[in-house]
């Protein structure tokens, strides 16, 4: 599952780091580091983190079972070359 955090929006509430500590971590007082490629077994935790972010800064695909989308376009990209 791919994800990206809009760090302009992020205000360091750390809800994500609390709900999905294997994906998100605070680095210092306020800065967030995250793994943009979350493993499949983190699906549920990631979904909770996305929902809990007070500023809705996290975008992830593949959370609602539509996870083949990203992989699909990767395949397409290879085919089109």
């Amino acid at each position, binding site marked *: *599952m*791919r*994800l*990206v955090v*809009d*760090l*302009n929006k*992020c*205000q*360091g509430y750390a809800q994500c780091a609390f709900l999905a500590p294997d994906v998100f*971590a605070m*680095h*210092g*007082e*306020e*800065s967030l*580091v*995250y*793994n*943009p*490629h979350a493993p499949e077994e983190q699906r549920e935790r990631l979904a909770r983190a996305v929902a809990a972010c007070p500023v809705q800064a996290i*975008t*992830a*695909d*593949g959370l609602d079972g539509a996870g083949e*989308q*990203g992989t*699909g*376009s*990767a395949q*397409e*990209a290879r085919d*089109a*070359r």
Partner: protein
Amino acid sequence: MPADHVDWLRREGRIVIVGASLAGLRAAETLRAEGFAGELTLIGDEPYEPYDRPPLSKSVLLGKASPHRTELPHRREIDAKWRLGVAATGLDLSAKRVKLADGDEVEYDRLLIATGVRARPWLKADEARLDGVCLLRTRDDAADLYQRLKAGPRRVFVIGAGFAGSEVASACREMGVPVTVAERAGAPLVGALGGVIGAVAADLQTENGVDLRPHVTVTSLEGDPVGRVRAVHLSDESVVEVDVVVVSLGSVRNTDWLTGSGLGAGPRGIACDAGCRAFDFRGIVTDDVFVAGDVARSPHALFGYQFLSLEHWGNAVAQAETAAHNMICHGADRRPHLWMPAFWSSMFGVNIKSVGVPPMGDQLMITQGSLAERRFVGVYGYQGRVIAAVSFDNTRWLEFYARQIERGAPFPVEFPTMDRRPEGRQPVAADFPDPSLPTHGPTVTLTGYSPADQQLVFHPARH
């Protein structure tokens, strides 16, 4: 142009996006979200589908993310034809064709240019080719640099203390790798945030064990007999022995491929109107060519209609969305791109964020916290109004200051705050270097007319 041209375009037109990164992807998604049903082609010179770059100098170098897995999530299915791993090499405006490096040509009805920037390489090509001399812009760059840092080099040398260079230095220290940073100006981040904040950044670096060398330039890189870099020679005649050199001298806009196309493109980017429509070299707005992201420069009403060229993640997203919207709607429904500039960085455990355009400011007030604690908000003033703000570990205030900038709030700021320290009562000079002198790594470039861009010979009318 017939009134139904836009309806036709939305139904069965061909839209080509050159540049398959953040801006290109978000534009493609917006086109589909707003009902574009025609043919969509994305062209990218890298063989990878759109990936995110900010993690490359942070999470990736800290070993918390793989450089190969930062692909951007898709917001929706875009049903596009991807031409990846092939660069655009030319543009024929009258035939409406993009030329590709493999000899192919792609026709368009509307074109979006989002080719972004690339890292500025070390100026001496033979030295730049030495093994161990690195850049950090692409995911291949990040993978290479991460491997080299992990191998435990004797010392890393970073040329240029802008945001990228400082983030690399931070990652080195966190990995326990000795690092030297050379900066032409007096402190890190000076070009982006001025000398007062730069001094804080300098303390941050030296206290974390960075060997910081301000006021020097690198004169040459020395290789060993098998072509590996082994030493860096500086303008103060000192020599530093190293295994890795990271060239962090800012970026170059990817406009070379537009040479001779007739578009208003040059080293400072591609000029466009506030609706993202590109200008041609005569300053006339084009109808079918749009621009978004780092490569664009567009006028902004809040900042004196300066043509701003913003290398900001959020700008790439917002400008792509506006450009895509404007590409497929009737004139009266078009929107201007008037995004509040904002960026972030993170180094040595400190979260640095900014809103507005700090380099336009001439004065600075610390309104929250204190410089000594490295937890503060600094507000920049320009001609009696608030023009920008920067925070070190104080991000929640920035939204407030963004609103202040939008409404042209007076400077010096007048409102009392909870924790105003004595240092904040009076504005001080923000201490930006002379803009005519180069500094490394500003993320905002104020791009007025450059004599270097000259493409016309001016003949005054005879009366």
